[in-house]
């Protein structure tokens, strides 16, 4: 099914062996703190990668760097074979092709759900209001939020707000979707509805890079799990391997703590 209206195969990946995103030897420092340390990561077409690791291990920073919200201090990032870490690249144009959803939803409080979703299509892609609303409505209906289109974000539950935020990112038809701990700010009973939506997106073939604390979900939905520690990928592999038989002692310790906290 392709109910989210993605035309995923329209854009051909050029020269990177099918990798949509390729991060090479990425480095990011905040003052004297090295947040990303010589980190390399490729994301293939239709691949879903889960980034796990303790707070401060660099997961969010990695996503913010890919979306050019932060400038990397070394290395390269390529999207569909094009170097987007080149300072001559127009970040606005790159961001139109990479969607990001934040932990705190960050919906615009002064706009209705519909205006939140159609802002970028109308202002960035110069789509007519009618066309943008039609496209937005199709996505909102798909996630069961059509009746909330005229509401303001503060009238919605956290789970509904986060689903709107995902729709807002999807309406641009991105090549890559970045999800930054999208369920961390939600009440436990609302986490499910957001995870279901992400699972559906995977079914549609969306390429996704997600930072998460939901180990059970990472295990189900991810093709590959990367364990980050101090800005490096310490261990990566299929979920069964990383969760079932972690090689590194640090990964084992981390997973042990998660199990003790009852999150796996």
């Amino acid at each position, binding site marked *: 099914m392709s109910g989210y209206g993605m035309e995923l195969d329209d854009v051909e990946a050029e020269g990177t062996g099918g990798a949509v995103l390729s991060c090479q030897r990425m480095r990011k420092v905040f003052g004297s703190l090295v947040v990303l340390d010589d980190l390399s990561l490729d994301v293939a077409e239709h691949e879903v990668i889960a980034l796990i690791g303790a707070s401060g291990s660099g997961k969010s920073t990695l996503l913010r760097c890919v979306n050019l919200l932060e400038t990397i201090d070394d290395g390269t990032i390529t999207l569909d074979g094009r170097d987007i870490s080149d300072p001559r690249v127009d970040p*606005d*144009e790159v*961001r139109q092709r990479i*969607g990001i959803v*934040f932990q705190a939803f960050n919906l615009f409080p002064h706009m209705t759900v519909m205006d939140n979703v159609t*802002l*970028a299509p109308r202002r960035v892609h110069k789509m007519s209001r009618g066309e943008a609303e039609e496209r937005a409505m199709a996505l909102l209906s798909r996630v069961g939020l059509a009746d909330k289109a005229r509401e303001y974000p503060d009238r919605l539950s956290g789970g509904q707000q986060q689903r709107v935020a995902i729709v807002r990112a999807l309406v641009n038809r991105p090549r890559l979707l970045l999800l930054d701990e999208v369920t961390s700010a939600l009440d436990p009973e609302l986490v499910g509805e957001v995870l279901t939506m992400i699972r559906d997106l995977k079914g549609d073939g969306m390429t996704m890079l997600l930072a998460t604390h939901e180990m059970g979900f990472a295990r189900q939905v991810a093709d590959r799990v990367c364990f980050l520690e101090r800005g490096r990928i310490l261990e990566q592999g299929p979920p069964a391997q990383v969760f079932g038989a972690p090689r590194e002692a640090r990964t084992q310790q981390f997973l042990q703590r998660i199990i003790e906290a009852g999150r796996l």
Partner: protein
Amino acid sequence: MGTALETYRPSDIQLGRVAYRRRQTVRSIAIAAGSTVVLGVVLVVAVTGAPGWDLVRQDFLDPTEARESFVPILEGLWLNIQLLFFCAIASLLLGLLIAVLRTLRGPVFFPVRALATAYTYVFRGTPLLIVLYVLAFGMPGLRLTFTPSVLVLGGIGLTLTYGGYIAEVFRAGIESVHPSQRAAARSLGLTYRQTMRHVVLPQAVRRVAPALLNDLVALQKDVGLISVAGPIDAIRAAQIAQQHNFNYTPYIVAGALFVLLAIPTILVTDYVTLRAARRQSAEGTT
């Protein structure tokens, strides 16, 4: 919750509490009324009992003088209202422009930023009276081929001074919008300008609306300072009336009219502030 409406009966404890609160309310109102009357009497006795009261009443509260000066002062007030209208709009626009210029990033804009910053420093620092003197009396001295009337020059002085304050109010609003809102907008591909226009400014303006209205209340009375430059506004009309027989009642009339003029704006300000506070607390729950 839970209990169906038709079967719900308040318990005796609740009925007791309701009755007690009602008694307390009646008591509070009685005390408030009583203390107000006492204070009022004390004030009246203190003022009218003062040794110079009769003389003051003659000079400041003469009914005949008030009646005679009322119409010219009211005509003068119309000029103040017109001036207020134009100065309010102009200073809001100027303030918004300066605030946006001050928040521009990028090295190209350094001179613009510096100028905008210098402007807010200078005009917030200079007494309005001096700005008016310099513009109304200094500008014509330049003998330019085209010099606007003293009234327009005074209006420009008011606009420049208030624009400085209003710019800072807008800037505070712009900076109060959380950076995550900008990040969200930019991540959707919106440019800096689109982010300002559609995401940051609408939220900023809503937040600072009470402060802006408060500045308008201040402007409302400061338009009276235009009288120093010569145009016959309410205060100037009062001054002319006062010079007839050196009775100060016209000034009291003009003052009272300014208060009346301010009341609607103040009421609107209070209402907007209250609504903003309510919305803020509603936002806090999400």
